[in-house]
């Protein structure tokens, strides 16, 4: 099967899970009107707090709880700055990012001078089901966090789109005056959204450290927080868009890792890209000229199948370039930020 085999899909899923978990939290927070650009710092806080807990009690459940607590702590600081003191959210976010990196590194050197390694989360093989070809290993031989991520996303969808709380949340980020007039506490809702995002980012961070690999290294989140924010924005503040964005990032990342260890770009990559562009054109029905030209070029490449290898940085840039192309092709109407995003709410103006 070459590039696109089961291991590839599993790998994409593993890359996607923590980003998706953190991005879902950020989405909830942004829908309430609070943008935390320091998500990277919150992830790190979760990663370190989880690891620190593990070095003390060596229990993965407690480790994850510790991670969640760490995420909550930094998120609470963000909430304090954004909701109570009402400072500029972007600067506050930058500060949170700097603090997250500095604090975790400092505390790591201070409290855990000798790096320790733990067993990562075990994969849970569901008997019989995991023997199904393709779907088996993909779906029924994963660690618990993958399942938890799916559950959280499903739950988030239910809560955001099927409950009164979800309505209140959307109103708080869009027209806080209206929420306030309806007796909904803008402050309370923003706090809970920020804390939820902190808890989810904390859990995602804990997965990056103790869940996936069982160690902690400074700055080990490697920009996943920024990817999560990009996914929220790219996904047009909708859960569906978010899933699509994370899928793009994870799949291209997995492809990129795979291709690096191949001598040349295999033909199926061009075929797959052509199919993706075709699908995009059919869904969006826009950008036909440019899209068509790209499509023809890709088909030609798939047929000719030249022996080329591209520099690693080009592959590393691929997810973002693809996201940009998708945005440009998608056009204006598809994304609109919550009107009150990053705006503090001051009641007397109502």
């Amino acid at each position: 099967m070459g590039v696109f085999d089961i291991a590839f899909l599993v790998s994409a899923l593993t890359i996607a899970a923590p980003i998706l978990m953190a991005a879902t939290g950020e989405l909830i927070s942004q829908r309430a009107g609070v943008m935390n650009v320091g998500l990277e710092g919150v992830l790190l806080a979760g990663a370190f707090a989880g690891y620190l807990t593990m070095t003390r009690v060596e229990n993965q459940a407690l480790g994850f709880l510790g991670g969640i607590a760490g995420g909550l702590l930094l998120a609470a600081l963000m909430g304090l700055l954004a909701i109570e003191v009402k400072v500029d959210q972007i600067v506050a976010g930058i500060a949170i990012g700097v603090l997250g990196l500095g604090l975790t590194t400092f505390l790591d050197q201070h409290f855990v001078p000798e790096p320790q390694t733990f067993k990562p989360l075990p994969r849970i093989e569901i008997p019989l089901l995991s023997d199904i070809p393709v779907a088996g290993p993909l779906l029924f031989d994963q660690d618990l966090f993958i399942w938890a991520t799916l559950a959280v996303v499903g739950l988030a969808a239910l809560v955001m789109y099927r409950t009164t709380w979800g309505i209140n949340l959307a109103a708080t980020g869009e027209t806080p005056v209206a929420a306030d007039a309806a007796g909904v506490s803008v402050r309370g809702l923003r706090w809970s959204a920020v804390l939820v995002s902190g808890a989810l980012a904390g859990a995602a961070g804990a997965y990056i450290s103790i869940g996936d690999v069982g160690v902690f290294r400074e700055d080990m989140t490697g920009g996943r927080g920024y990817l999560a924010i990009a996914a929220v924005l790219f996904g047009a503040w909708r859960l569906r868009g978010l899933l699509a964005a994370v899928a793009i990032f994870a799949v291209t990342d997995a492809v990129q890792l795979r291709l690096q260890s191949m001598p040349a770009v295999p033909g199926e990559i061009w075929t797959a890209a052509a199919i993706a562009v075709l699908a995009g054109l059919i869904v969006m029905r826009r950008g036909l000229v440019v899209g068509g030209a790209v499509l023809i070029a890709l088909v030609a490449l798939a047929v000719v199948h030249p022996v080329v290898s591209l520099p690693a940085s080009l592959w590393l840039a691929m997810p973002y370039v693809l996201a940009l192309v998708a945005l440009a092709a998608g056009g204006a109407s598809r994304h609109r930020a919550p009107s009150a995003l990053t705006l503090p709410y001051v009641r007397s103006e109502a």
Partner: protein
Amino acid sequence: MRTRLALISFATAIPVLLAGCGGGSDEAAGAADDSTTIGFLAPAPRNDGGFTQYALAGVQAAVDADPKLKLTSIVDNAAESQEQIEGLQSLAANNDVVVADGAVLNKAVAVVAPKYPDTHFVLIASDLEALAPNVSSVTVAVGLNAMVAGAVASNASKSKKIGMIAGPEVPSSTAWYYGMAQGAKIENPATSVAQAYTNDYNDVGKAKQAAEAMIANGADQILSDLDSGSEGIYQAADAKAGTGVYNVFALHCDENPNIIGSGVVNWSDVLKASVTEAAAGTLKAGAISFGLKSGALSFQFCPGKGTDEQKALAEKITKEISDGTVVPEKGVLLPQPSYAFEQR
């Protein structure tokens, strides 16, 4: 406007206040007795479980061995050139010997060293740029070790596909790849060698995914030119029976049962020797490369690992490289300076 002024005055107040609180403290460099002080600067974190940590351990060993040596300051995480220059300058102004741990520091050392002629700089890199009477660049020819590792891995591979995973794509990493490729070719011309870069010596997750990808592509022997990132490769190997893992710099046999061996570099000895000589003023300016002959490099198997055939193969190739029968190809050795080069 008023708030703005207030803010400005407040902001300016910080450094003033900070300065005001000080005073009455003696200078750090005031301990000017007959001891030799050492400063250490690295672009990576000091506990990276690899390159930096080993070098630091080497410096510490030198300090422990000689009571007159003192390690005063460590500046780590100096990722940016400007910061590196400032760090080197601060260290050079207050120390007799400055260890610059990493090839990316070459240009920064070239800028700073001429300004501090009384300080001796030990640059851990095979350097061509920082030529100055007070700079010695010290390195090891890891590519030679890689040739042995490549031959062993090729022999151990059932699929005849082996691979190397490194952090950023820099000469010291590509040397491992080229060495492995040459060594594998000697053992079996059919063996192919793959390379992958995670761009980060310490990103465990990325390393794990890269290794998983490599294994999925058929590779069953993987060399990890990573620091703490190696953990990810162990885990990928755990998931696929029969995958052999090779480390660099040191033996990590107890970290994972899949580890076959390591291209060991005796950093401690290299650093200890360099620092001690530098402190004594006997370290020559120019470039010094430690090779297989000096004992600084060796391929070592983990206890109970490696077949007799592989062990014999390793010995044979080590000998052939040392006596010049096998000539390293392009990329295996780091570029050599045309001046004051010493092979140990």
